[in-house]
């Protein structure tokens, strides 16, 4: 399980990344992230929606209410150009953290 802080920091890049594979809605986004993380990333489901709305206001994503195959209406989210740009920046940041940590954690001969 991730800490609260890490969940908060990673939600936006996770959502952006899932949406690069096509539009989706809140419930599906959560399922995808749960599956891909092997159950290690578990969100308090309702908490995703304020994040989605914030991303919508920031023009990272756009949304549309549409009737789903169930007959009920669902709000579908799609990536926007600004979202792709934001994702690239996020990618660089997360990769640099990841690279640095893996370098540090690699077993290596002590220098002194």
């Amino acid at each position, binding site marked *: 399980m991730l800490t609260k802080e890490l969940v908060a920091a990673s939600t936006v890049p996770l959502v952006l990344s899932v949406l690069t594979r096509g539009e989706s*809605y*809140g*419930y599906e986004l959560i399922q995808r992230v749960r599956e891909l993380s092997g159950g290690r990333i578990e969100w*308090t*489901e*309702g*908490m995703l*929606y*304020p994040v989605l*709305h*914030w991303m919508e*206001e920031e023009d990272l994503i756009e949304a549309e*209410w549409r009737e789903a195959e*169930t007959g*009920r*209406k*669902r*709000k579908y989210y799609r990536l926007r150009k600004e979202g792709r740009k934001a994702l690239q920046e996020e990618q660089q940041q997360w990769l640099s953290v990841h690279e640095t940590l893996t370098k540090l954690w690699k077993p290596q001969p002590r220098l002194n």
Partner: protein
Amino acid sequence: METTTSFELNQAIQQWRENLGQSPAFRSENLNELESHLRDSIATLQTRGLSAEEAFVVATGRIGQGGPLEAEFCKVNGRAIWLDRMLWMLVGIQIWGLVASLTGSVVRNALSWGWGSINYNYKENGLTLPIALFSLVQVLVIAASLALCWWLVVRKGEKLGARLTPLLKRRSTLVATCAGLCLFSLIAYALGYVMQAFLARSLGVRTFGSIAIYFSYSQLIAWPIQVITMVILTLALARKRLRLNKA
């Protein structure tokens, strides 16, 4: 296998939605989306063999508690929440204004009428008694209007809100409500003033004039009491609110 349970899924979902909807943090679009999520979640859980009730309990648990959710939605819906607060403040001020001035007007006329029917000569008997009586009555009126407002807001507030909200939603009903309230207060005020004119004529200018003097003096006492009461009440409510926020 089919047992008659009292659990009605749609009703439970509706109730859950209404509970969340009590908070201004959620706009109706937010509630639509959360409900859509809840229904998806319940449907998935039911295909895994859970009963409707079990699925409902698990799904609402996964969505999260009202309190923390409210806090997160507050952050994105800040402007709507402030509008909501302003609206209820204005409603409160107007209810107070209407209740206080109407009871004040009724009591003032009743008091004038009652006092006018006894023959009291202040030049002989002094001003102390009538001023004390008039002050007492005015303070009681303030206390009574405060109690009435308190009762309206605290005891009947939810019902009143539930009735007001649909009225505010459509433009036609909103305009009709405003017009109705304006008409009501216009008639009430007009009646009050007509009553005063009537009293001035029937009591005679001299008696009516002396009553006006008692009122003026008694307002010197009642007015500061009202202002101080309101300030203390505001501070008390602010303190209570702060303590609630901390908890």
